[in-house]
């Protein structure tokens, strides 16, 4: 990720010289961003396994408080950052989008873990949403299953860098006509309606996974059911040993 560094009109060397004399020179932007990035309040909102690592990050050993982000708020209206920690299912996705809509500006989103990025290991499930980025924009993607607490801290630092790159005159939330609320999907008869929001996300043009494996793994690939009623000839020990250790022909 490349963020544009804030260009300060004051020369760096001069700044440090003045700093030695006890004079701090800063632009308004720097002050503004310093304040914002040092007190990111995340939402106390865990979905699955990753939430436990999020709690571990907040605990004494990893201590997210060092980054000023220890104040987990249970209400979306008080929080700046939504950490989508865990698998977003189709049943849960409307609620996640609604929570995002309810957050006040400026708002940021970190997707924590493979599941919330793209479905992760559960991508083939009938009730699993393949990434929350289908409905809301994401600032930092954080891979891992689950990411270690250090990774979450790194993600937070990346977000801080992103905040540092923003300027007060260009930030979206001071502009007119800002639309950062996204329509909340509905639960339909086969899944969510719509399947994704084309303003936020579009399918990849070439999907290698789909080409190779089809999409998705289907129930009912088999067309012959096991017959448990058939009498068992000689019971397990010997037979299973031989049949299990033979490599299959297919």
């Amino acid at each position: 990720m490349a963020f544009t560094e804030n260009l300060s009109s004051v020369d760096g060397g001069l700044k440090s010289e003045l700093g030695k004399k006890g004079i701090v020179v800063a632009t308004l932007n720097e002050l503004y961003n310093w304040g914002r990035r040092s007190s990111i309040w995340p939402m106390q909102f865990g979905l699955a396994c990753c939430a436990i690592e999020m709690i571990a990050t907040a605990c004494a050993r990893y201590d997210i408080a060092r980054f000023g982000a220890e104040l987990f708020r249970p209400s979306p209206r008080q929080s700046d950052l939504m950490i989508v920690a865990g698998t977003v299912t189709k049943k849960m996705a409307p609620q996640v989008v609604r929570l995002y809509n309810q957050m006040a500006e400026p708002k940021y989103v970190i997707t924590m873990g493979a599941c919330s990025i793209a479905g992760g290991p559960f991508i083939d499930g009938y009730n699993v949403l393949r990434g929350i980025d289908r409905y809301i924009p994401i600032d930092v993607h954080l891979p891992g299953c689950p990411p270690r607490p250090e990774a979450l801290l790194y993600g937070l630092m990346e977000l801080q860098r992103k905040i540092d790159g923003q300027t007060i005159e260009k930030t979206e939330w001071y502009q007119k006509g800002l639309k950062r609320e996204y329509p909340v999907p509905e639960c339909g008869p086969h899944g969510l309606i719509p399947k994704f929001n084309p303003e936020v996300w579009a399918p990849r043009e070439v999907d290698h996974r789909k080409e190779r494996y089809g999409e998705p793994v289907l129930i009912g690939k088999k067309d012959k059911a096991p017959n448990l009623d058939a009498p068992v000839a000689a019971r397990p020990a010997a037979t299973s040993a031989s049949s299990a250790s033979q490599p299959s022909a297919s």
Partner: protein
Amino acid sequence: MEKIFSARDPSALNTETLEINFGPQHPSTHGVFRMNIVCDGETVVSLKPVMGYLHRNHEQIAENMSYAASMPYTDRLDYFNSMSNNFGYSLAVEKLANIEVPERAQYIRVIMAELTRLVNHVSVIGFLLNDLGAFFTPVLYAFREREKILDIFEEVSGARMMCNYFRFGGVKYEIQPHILQRIKEIVKKFPKFLEEFEALLSKNEILCMRCQNVGVLPKELAVSASITGPMLRASGVDYDIRKVDKYSIYGRFKFRIPLGEKGDVYDRYYVRILEMHESLKILDQALKDIPATGELVSKKMAPFLKSPRNFKPPVGEAYGRVEAPKGELGFYVVSDGTPQPWRYHVRAPSFINLTILEDMCLGHKIADVIVILGSVDIVLGEVDH
């Protein structure tokens, strides 16, 4: 004049019931659990759990992949106790294909499963206190101990939480002597921590008042509702699968089963504390008896470590169950002789333990609902599998 309202006679007050939606995004529901509560004043009149917000289709996915590939998914069922989940699944498949487990691997399995129990119980008590209003401080204590054990898991399996350590017929990696030494140290120091924990909590007046006689679960209802684990034992039913089935090598260890008297929240809390003491006893014995060398995976299963897709159990079905920290964790597997199971079902303890949530909460205040839910000890990954 008609008497409209008298403060001394609340029955004359004509109140309307209030419907409250609780969750799925709520800090005290331990995840994405949702309850529809109907209250009369502050008293709960009806409570309907709504689940499925974390329904990740574990069973569907498992029916489409090889047996060994489901192992990491079982980690994510009850994400506090990946080792016990592995244990249950490997037991089921070992039953299905009739696989023996070597001696040393058995010991390693038991050590890991009991360490997991410590992790789970200690965190659950922390979260229970969280629900009681002691915000985050007990969790800090609990997670301090948890981190020590997670370090062991990491060194053994390579992952902190999702260990994926068990294999059919054994375990994946060797456990080095210095790790065993560290486990010994943890086991030695753990009682001191428990003492500290208990000194702060067990006789704490607020904890006693909030927990005693709250959410009482009678014995008969507990049995009929298929409640298992510490919850069942807190109601005074002597049923521990480690003792009943004597699976793996649990028959060799001396330990007792703590039982509660009343079946209230306090009993559930205290049974967990006592169970940790018993787990430490088992760990003590296992660490003493573990053979220094030996196979990790049975000879029959060793070739399948490299080529798990060739593993085809014979046609049949098996139900393997373990005493996971939350209760009876069962796996029902039907094989049709191909590399993928025909049917794969998880009997999730915290899912079934929720059956009587309404019965326990009726008549209590709404603040107690959270405590009762905390004492059930649910993990949503398992509830919704």
